[in-house]
């Protein structure tokens, strides 16, 4: 299967850092559709930095990231984030003044995806991640952490992206909910052929992932499950 995302000798250092002070160095990862990837590493190993590079929030200092063989350095990253990448954060990052469905619809609006009935689609997405339709008009702050994370996943799916990137998606959740959320993501990989990339500390999630990449001392180790 051809990789959808390919990292070639990716390095990153902060703009105000010394020339050789890299947070990431010589990263060569491949990501394919239909699989769940876990990126592990200790605090400070550069997991979140790597995620920000993959999701187009930052540009790499060295090497290149290819999305469908196209260098991210040459494409509109706003468009990339709003159409090809779905991002799920540990802290959900939903807009509290909007309802659950409005958060999802806003994402559809930004991506300019053509949908006849955006509200109906939002409710359908919510149901697909285990939220009842009655939650559609609930304000975000009235939902539990697990429910908010489900909304965040539904939002990331609203424009049918190729890749879902999740940064510690279950970090704030209990074990039972963690498994439920992972099941949703796993299901997306298997049934929707999405590429799921999870940055996590959880051994449980790492074990259940198809492929684990471990960041250690500014290098990487690939461990096939």
């Amino acid at each position, binding site marked *: 299967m051809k990789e959808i995302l390919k990292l070639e000798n990716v390095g990153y250092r902060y703009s105000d850092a010394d020339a050789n002070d890299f947070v990431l160095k010589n990263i060569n990862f491949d990501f394919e559709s239909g699989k769940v990837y876990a990126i592990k590493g200790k605090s400070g190993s550069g997991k979140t930095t790597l995620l920000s590079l993959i999701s187009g929030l*930052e540009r790499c200092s060295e090497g290149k990231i290819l999305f469908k063989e196209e260098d991210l350095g040459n494409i509109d990253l706003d468009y990339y*984030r709003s159409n090809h990448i779905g991002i799920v*954060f540990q*802290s959900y*990052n939903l*807009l509290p003044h909007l309802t659950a469905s409005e958060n999802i619809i*806003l994402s559809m609006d*930004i991506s300019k995806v053509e949908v006849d009935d955006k509200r109906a689609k939002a409710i359908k997405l919510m149901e697909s991640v285990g939220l009842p339709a009655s939650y559609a008009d609930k304000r975000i702050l009235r939902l539990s952490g697990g429910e908010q994370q489900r909304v965040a996943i539904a939002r990331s799916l609203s424009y049918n992206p190729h890749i879902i990137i999740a940064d510690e998606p279950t970090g704030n959740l209990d074990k039972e909910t963690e498994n439920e959320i992972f099941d949703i993501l796993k299901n997306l990989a298997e049934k929707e052929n999405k590429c799921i990339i999870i940055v996590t500390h959880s051994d449980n999630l790492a074990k259940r992932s198809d492929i684990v990449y471990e960041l250690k001392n500014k290098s990487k180790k690939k461990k096939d499950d």
Partner: protein
Amino acid sequence: MYIFKNAWVSITRNKGRNIFIGIIILVIACATSVTLAIRSSASSLIEAYENSVDLTVSIGMDRSNMMGKFDMSSESSREEMMKAFQNVSSITIDDFELYANSNYLKDSYYTISVGLDSDEMEAATSSFGNGDRGGMGGNKTTITNTTSSGDFTITGYSSISAMTEFISGNYSIVEGEVPTDFDSNYCVINQELAELNEISVGDTIKFVNSNNNKTYSLIVSGIYTEKEDGTSGMSMFSNSVNNIITNANYVSNIASEDDDLTSSLTPTFVLNNKEDLNAYEEELRNKGLSEYLAINTNSEEVENATSTISNVSSFATTFLIITLIIGGVVLLVINMINIRERKYEIGVLRTIGMKKKMLTAQFMIELLVISMVALLVGAGIGSFISVPVSNSLLASEIESSKNESNSIGQNFGGNMNQAQGGQMAGGGNAPTNINFGGVSVQAYSSIDAVVDMKVLGQLLLVGIGLTILSGLASMISIQKFSPLTILKERT
């Protein structure tokens, strides 16, 4: 476009924050509305006055021009200058008619004076002696040739317009009335002179030319008082108490029939348009007006008359500028605080792919909607407040002008009291005749003239401009925010 929907949702669901911003803009809008209303009112008043007051032209000796052409250090040169001064001919009625026959004029009038003695009346005297004030147009520059060696000055007016002393209120009738028949031999005399000689309205008074003993009779139709002391501002040979006021036809007739009488004519020409001044002066020079005679206008009077209103307008302008500067800075700071407060929202929207320009546009739309509502409410409140503020600033001016206008009618007495005084009445929402420096003009005493669409338009322009400027400055900071940094900070 979704940013409008998103902006509206943001406005309606963040009421506390937006009401606070709205109140700030409301206060700025109120202050701006009041100052704009005052400016507008003052401008209307000045414009009304300038449109109503005619530019008048008088002719006077150009002494500086004359002195500049002669060497004053030389005795002979000074003698030549005196000769030239004496040779500058007085304006005659023929000259007046020649100069008055112009397409640039819409009106013209004059006063003409002669000096006579009286065997029956005793002239009022003062420590300054007696002489001539140069006619009723005395506040304008006139050719003040000494008219006679007589104790009394007989001054004739060509029309009511020429009677500026009565219009300004310097003279006012206490008994009888000013004669309105300009072919009669009626006159009005000073109250002091009347008391000195026990003269009443209806009496006939006689004057004599001492050079040839010719006598002239006038019937007293009214007695006037003079606001200022009659001895003030006189030449060494005159006392204005001895000024006998009649019509110009009478004076010019006796002057033309009596070769031993010397008359002095003071012309006034009223221009059609203020812009015609230079053209009219050129016409006068072409018609033979001496280079030693200068053209004078009442433009300075116009400036003096409107200076109070102009000061109010200037004050309002200064206050407006200060309000806008302070308001702009306050708005800028609040916008920047607002943007910082919404960093998380900015971070989320940028992370899910919203472009910076769309985000900026959405925030600007939110600010403009809040501003528009606040401006409209502020305009309403401001216009309501501007009623008492504007009125209090203008009230004293209007009140004093009304009093002055009403008193003009009383100055003339009799029929003139009804004719002039009646026209001066006004008030309520109707335009009122306001008197500036002795000239009656129309102006608005009602606040309806202050608050209008022009003010509202100006307020909206100023408000929107201020909002955009202060908004733009804060929007620039959006461009600098990194979504990753924002979200990291939150985490």
